[in-house]
């Protein structure tokens, strides 16, 4: 019998790589890749981004945790990604299991397979990756075999805040920031291996760490309406799992020696994380809630990191990233320093997330001296009323004034992001979107930019757990389609391009976003039927999903479209981001009365995060 070890895999790959698209995705060997001695480490982690290489390599969490874990002499961390379907097919033909890019070892040989959950639509890829790795899907199937035969299946990242649909497949989740907790849990596994503990014993110990959620320690009971009636918690486990927070974000580990991919990544540049958290409190936004409190990194540290990163990577671009970079207190100073030190080396600077209420055209002009390709803004809603509902503190006057200076500074392509199907939305709000696009063009005409183009992008609202809108239902598919059609007809203009998302995709996303464990059967059915890469329109199979929904007898509307009651026990009530349910209820009520909540830098909204879980950090200008 053939032993499918790393050498065999590497050799076998040469037969198929010349025939697949972008083979550079599958061989590693990139600049700054870390190759450790397998035999000299105690705990080996395969960090898996459940999407294609170019997407995964752009992820900041992967960059940080890969670098961080490998600084520990006892730990080894290697990468794996979802193979594109052409590669998957060839791998199956040749009998090659999924392997890590550093050592070409099958994932099954690792102690931990850690998935990062960035979006619900990658759930199918996670199960598919387990299949390709010849690892049984469910925790109970893995336990039935020899106790340590299979790796621990772990998951973390923003979607862990409600990953209940994945609960039967994952041994443990890490809630919150991984910089301290990930090494801590690996240390427990290391001890467990040494002491000869069973995996169950290791999990019992791990459950004591802040942020570690072991789903098998929790049992749900449902009433006749299908609502959660009771949760039974194992005595070893906490009733509520609180997220992990890094003690000192500013001086926390940051990787300057990041891997430089050969095949172009989506974000192929140095990413400087200037801050974590956001103070705006937009009511639809999960990131704005779960990453609280706002913590900034000191300008001195950022500058050092930037210089070192350019030196180590040779990247030609550096980007200041966060949820809202123009809100970073010292943004001007950091930009000036960076430009004086780095720009002369032929390195350009970019700001990916600009908010239009604090957007300074002068900043943008300085930064994007050469390329005036396009500017992106997110008004999110078309009328002031609806913007008040979602707590997006932006007025149309702000928008138009900013547009005017942008056009005067030479920009001519503007992208406007909106959401449709927001709570309380009417067709009047849609008219507002159309009106806004026209007004932007009118401003362009007045400033002499007759060549201006506007892209209007409308995504469909998906209620997300841990937000004030978590109780709201998603618009019915028929209504969403009608709204898209309504906009499409009214945005017929050569100067306007209208983009919108497939409603089927948003529907599946909404089902899983507010899903519970009972959805695991549907998920497994879908994966076995061949669903994968659901976030990619060319691979999304709504027909299969519909069939799966019918066969597993799941009511999708119960999850996606139902308006939940404030009193209900929710499938994610035992998972805490620190933001209290009372605060979310209050924000929800305020939304329905169109009342604004101020930025919490000005007045604390008492969401529950500060000061117990962490404190906000800002730097002086």
């Amino acid at each position, binding site marked *: 019998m053939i032993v499918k070890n790393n050498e065999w895999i590497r050799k076998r790959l040469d037969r198929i790589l010349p025939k697949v698209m972008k083979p*550079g995705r599958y061989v590693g060997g990139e600049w700054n890749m870390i190759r450790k001695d397998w035999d000299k480490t105690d705990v080996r982690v395969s960090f898996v981004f459940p999407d294609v290489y170019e997407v995964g390599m752009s992820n900041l969490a992967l960059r940080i945790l890969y670098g961080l874990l490998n600084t520990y002499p006892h730990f080894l961390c290697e990468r794996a990604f979802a193979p594109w379907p052409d590669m998957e097919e060839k791998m199956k033909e040749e009998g090659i299991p999924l392997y890590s890019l550093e050592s070409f070892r099958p994932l099954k040989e690792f102690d931990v397979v850690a998935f990062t959950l960035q979006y619900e639509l990658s759930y199918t890829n996670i199960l598919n990756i387990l299949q390709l790795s010849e690892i049984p899907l469910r925790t109970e199937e893995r336990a039935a075999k020899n106790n340590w035969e299979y790796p621990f299946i772990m998951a973390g990242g923003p979607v862990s805040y409600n990953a209940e649909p994945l609960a039967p497949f994952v041994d443990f989740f890490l809630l919150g920031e991984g910089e301290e907790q990930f090494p801590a849990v690996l240390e427990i596994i290391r001890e467990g291996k040494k002491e000869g503990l069973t995996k169950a014993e290791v999990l019992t110990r791990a459950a004591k760490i802040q942020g570690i959620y072991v789903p098998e320690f929790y049992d749900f009971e449902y009433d006749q309406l299908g609502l959660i009636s009771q949760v039974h918690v194992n005595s070893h486990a906490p009733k509520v799992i609180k997220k992990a927070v890094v003690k000192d974000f500013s001086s926390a580990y940051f990787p300057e020696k990041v891997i430089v991919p050969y095949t172009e990544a989506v974000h192929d540049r140095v990413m400087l994380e200037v801050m974590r958290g956001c103070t705006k409190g937009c009511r639809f936004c999960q990131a704005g809630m779960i990453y609280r409190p706002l913590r900034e990194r000191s300008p001195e540290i950022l500058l050092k990191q930037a210089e070192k990163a350019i030196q180590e990577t040779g990247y030609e671009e550096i980007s200041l990233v966060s949820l809202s970079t123009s809100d970073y207190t010292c943004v001007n100073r950091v930009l000036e320093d960076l430009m004086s030190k780095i720009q002369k080396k032929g390195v350009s600077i970019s700001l990916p997330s600009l908010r239009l209420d604090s957007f300074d055209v002068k900043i943008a002009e300085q930064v994007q001296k050469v390329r005036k390709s396009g500017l992106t803004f997110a008004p999110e809603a078309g009328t002031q009323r609806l913007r008040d509902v979602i707590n997006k503190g932006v007025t149309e006057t702000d928008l138009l004034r900013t547009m005017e200076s942008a056009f005067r500074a030479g920009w001519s392509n503007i992208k406007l992001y909106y959401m449709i199907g927001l709570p309380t939305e009417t067709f009047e709000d849609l008219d507002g979107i159309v009106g806004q696009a026209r007004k932007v063009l009118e401003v362009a005409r007045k400033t002499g930019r007759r060549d201006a183009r506007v892209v209007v992008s409308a995504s469909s609202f998906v209620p997300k757990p841990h937000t004030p809108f978590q109780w709201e239902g998603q618009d019915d598919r028929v209504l969403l389609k009608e709204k898209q059609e309504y906009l499409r007809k009214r945005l017929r203009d050569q100067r306007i391009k209208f983009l919108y998302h497939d409603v089927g995709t948003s529907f599946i996303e909404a089902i899983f976003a507010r899903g519970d464990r009972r959805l695991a059967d549907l998920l497994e059915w879908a994966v076995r039927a061949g669903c994968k890469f659901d976030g990619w329109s060319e691979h999304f199979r709504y027909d299969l999903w519909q069939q799966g929904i019918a066969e597993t007898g799941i009511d999708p509307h119960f999850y996606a479209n139902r308006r939940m009651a404030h009193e209900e026990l929710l499938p994610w009530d035992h998972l805490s981001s620190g933001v209290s349910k009372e605060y979310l209820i209050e924000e929800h009520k305020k939304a329905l009365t169109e009342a604004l909540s101020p930025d919490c830098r000005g007045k604390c909204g008492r969401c529950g995060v500060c000061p117990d879980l962490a404190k906000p950090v800002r730097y002086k200008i």
Partner: protein
Amino acid sequence: MAYTKRKEARYIAHLDLIRVFDRALRRAGIEVVYSEGFNPHPKISFGPPLPVGVEGTEEYVDIELKIQEEIAEQPFLIRIIGDLQKQLPEGIELVDYAIMPPGSKALMAVINLARYRTEVPLLEPLSAEAFQKACDRWLTREEAMSIRLQKGKKTERNIRPLASEIAVIPIENANDNYSLIAHRIKNNENGMVFLCKFDIKTGNDGSVRPVEILESISILENVPIDLPGVLTTREGLYIRKGQDLLKPIEYIRTVQ
């Protein structure tokens, strides 16, 4: 500069190479000339593309460097080559260099011949003579049509005129350089691997991959080749002028 493209580096796509060199040069602190305009790009240009997955032992790149006039050329170059080498990925090794005289033609415009070596596993036993005869028969044809699938589009063309020589080398005649192959033969379930050498026209008018020729031979001359198992190496790129065969760097030196 002449460089190798071996090991995992052979999976770096041709279009990605420019970024690989640009970033290595920046890490090495070597200043490159950039083009003017809205979207400046480094003045780095390559010879004929190497198909992804094919190894190269002498590939070529032209790089326009910024230098101050008072610098002595040779010591500067030696330092630059050393600094750049340290920043290049595993598998890319700088093996030769020369300063191009001003106004030299781009590599793509002058290189017109590529020499390949392939390791060809067969699915059924066959003598070297019989294999060579099959190749010669193929070479006497006037036409050998080959279909290439690119970006979902099928294009058919006659590849026969692009090949001028194919030599099948029995393994016992292979010298020590090919000990790797001996290792492969030992591990090959069917125990039959040949070395084949190809001279193929290349340049701006396009070219053909050895594996496409082997595919054509396997079909037209009925040779049982294990096509996915073929391992290809480009051993050299040349400028052929009549009888003369010059390596690009020799060519630059003769022009000087």
